[in-house]
């Protein structure tokens, strides 16, 4: 199992894909921005939208954040499949299902497949936010940041989760 873009992502990020100054350092950057959006909105993309592998494992710059990304996946899945907060066994089982100690991504094959689908879901959010594919990194960051500003108010969400 490996990391896979949304099928249309490479073309959408064409102007930002690695290849010089003013571009992403790695293709993983594009994947990561999509992933964060998908996980935040608990939005799974369709399996058929997931394209081909572009990298087998975390690139060096993201390795320190593998645990946090795994945590965000667990968090998104607990909400998506509606496991109550106090369901110790349910939470534990979900973690066992998704996490793999010996894998560099800390995820099992099923976990990584879900991660790719969240990235695909996030891509749909990003591509909707842009009128045309981004032409420069600065333009991308401004629109991307605006997406987060629109995201749910964390305090309100916390209160809703507690319920």
């Amino acid at each position, binding site marked *: 199992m490996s990391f896979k873009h949304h099928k249309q992502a490479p073309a959408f990020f064409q102007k930002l894909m690695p290849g010089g100054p003013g571009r992403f350092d790695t293709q993983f950057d594009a994947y990561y921005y999509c992933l964060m959006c998908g996980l935040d909105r608990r939005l799974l993309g369709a399996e058929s939208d997931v394209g081909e592998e*572009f990298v087998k494992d975390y690139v060096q710059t993201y390795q320190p954040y593998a645990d946090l990304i795994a945590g965000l996946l667990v968090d998104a899945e607990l909400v998506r499949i509606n496991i109550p907060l106090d369901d110790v066994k349910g939470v534990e089982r979900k973690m*066992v299902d998704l996490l793999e100690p010996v894998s560099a991504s800390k995820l099992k094959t099923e976990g990584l497949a879900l991660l790719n689908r969240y990235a695909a879901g996030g891509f749909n959010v990003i591509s909707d936010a842009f009128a045309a594919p981004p032409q420069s990194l600065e333009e991308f960051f401004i629109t991307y940041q605006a997406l987060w500003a629109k995201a749910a108010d964390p305090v309100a969400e916390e209160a809703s989760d507690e319920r």
Partner: protein
Amino acid sequence: MDLRIVGWRYKSIRGMRDVQIQLGDVPAQWTLIQMPNGTGKTTTLTLMRLALSGETPDPQTVRSFRPDDVTESGEFVLRITVDGDNCWLILQFDYVEGVMRQFTSRASLDSGGYEPGRRLKRDLQDLLTKDFTRLFVFDGELAKSIRDLSKDEASKSIRTLYQLDRVAQLRQAAQRILETEQEASVRTERGHSNIAGRLKTAEAKLRTLKTERKELEESRSQLRQSIAALDVKRQERISANEGLGERLKGVTAKRADIAASLALLTSQVAELSRNPAAVSEVILVRLHKLAERLQKLKLPKTTSSEFFHELAKAPECICGRPIGPHEKCQIEARANEYLGHNQVAVINAMKEALRTSAADPAVLAERVEQIKGLMRQRKQADHEFDRLCAEREEQGDDQIESIRIELERCRATFDEQERKFLGLTATSKADQQSYGVDWNGNIPLCEKQVAEAKAALTAATNTMRLMEQSTFVQNALHLVEKRAYEALRDRVQTSTNIKLKSLLPGEGIRVSEIGSSLMLSTDALASKDSVSEGQGLAVAYAFLASLFEDAPYGLPFVVDSPAVSLDTLVRREVAELIPSLFGQAIFFVISSEREGFAESFYGRPGANFITVQTGKDGHTSVETGIEPFKAFHSDEDEPQAEVGV
């Protein structure tokens, strides 16, 4: 190759409870075994055929050997020599199940044990088929079918004995090889030309795509130069006015500063945003909440599955109670509900990372705001630049406007060509997919298509060549088979007729044709469709004798009641004819066949006489020698009808 029968043994077989017949290590050329009717002659021949042919009998046949309802199993062992080497063919019968199991024991085997199945030397293994064995362990029914026009035993016999079947098998093998190749490649010439067409199309497309790539490379390079030249030209035009030139310097320096600051800031934003906690307040809160939740739920549990697996092995629980098999089972089953050490470790690591995740999303937001500000400045600088251009245009410099229009056109064309070029040259599946290109619009895919078509064409060409070779070989083998059969058939026919002249002199019966069967004629009749049983037997013997005359195998000839339907005169002729044809002949006779037939062997060196008799008590005696043979008489053996020829 020489095959001889050296003896056989019955155990719990109908008519033969526990009897052994031994013909000696070097058996006599002629053995006459006298047995009354109904005491097991037909059974013995059937058993010999089963042993030699290796065929599997049906349950009804197996049970026909059962001596009584009480006996559950039986055995028949045929001892033979093949080129002097001993071999035992063992048949074991399970009368209850109705099955027969065959084994072979060979003296050459170190173990001396039984091998499952019939294991003969390779040539014999193939030769001794069910049909062929009937020819020399002679089945009386065969004599009838030999002259039956609806059967093809005659030609089949020639083909089998002289191994013409092997030529047919070779022909089939040539066809099979061709078919296997065709399965993997193409079946027809049309298929071949389709593949050739496919290759031609792919090669033409590849040439077109490569030309397109070259043109795009050249065009893009020219466009780059044009854009650079137009930029320079535009700046020159602006600088031509002293006042504007100074302002242009200022704007250019400002734009350079902004570009440098933007590069720095975007790089910082990229770096910062790699930490999920820094992306947004929402994410940071969620990470901390998950850590708290795990803490609250006391996850991961401090007790691991390993602890319970260990506990299950212990004789007693930590509370002191003994752990029996039931408890052990329960503990083992429930242990799997707990996390393993490794899983506990990874969740702990994650929990720690969540708990300590720290970043200030506000920093990222602030940097992005700075980017926004810089972009506003850049926009202003661009406007300033545009204003300079506009002012120059207003001063009456028409060229500056056309330069701007030309620059916009060049940049748009360059972008379009860039996308086309990337689609044309994309190598990864992901890129090819995202540009929506197949082999018709992508060079690496088209090269792959050409390579595949080339491989398919090579395979198809080889198949076509193989088809021609196979057809040639098959035709040649067919001709060899046909001519060999015709030559052998004519020789057997001539030889049969020579023998029939002395066997059946009266009517002048002869074989007029060996086609699908033996066709007979006489001096007076072009086609003699019916013959008496005796005449038929005589024709069969003459045919078989001729058939085996030049055969590449020395086989024993075993026959049941060879003369019972012949009259005395013909019996003597048959007795003269048959023995000389076989290295070993075994005749099962009844007492009435002594006259004319058996008596012809009296006093001949190399003749062996055996008399087998079963008393009313079921005991079977075996006596060897001519005197008991001559003296034996059974009322039941009177011939039912003697047929004159």
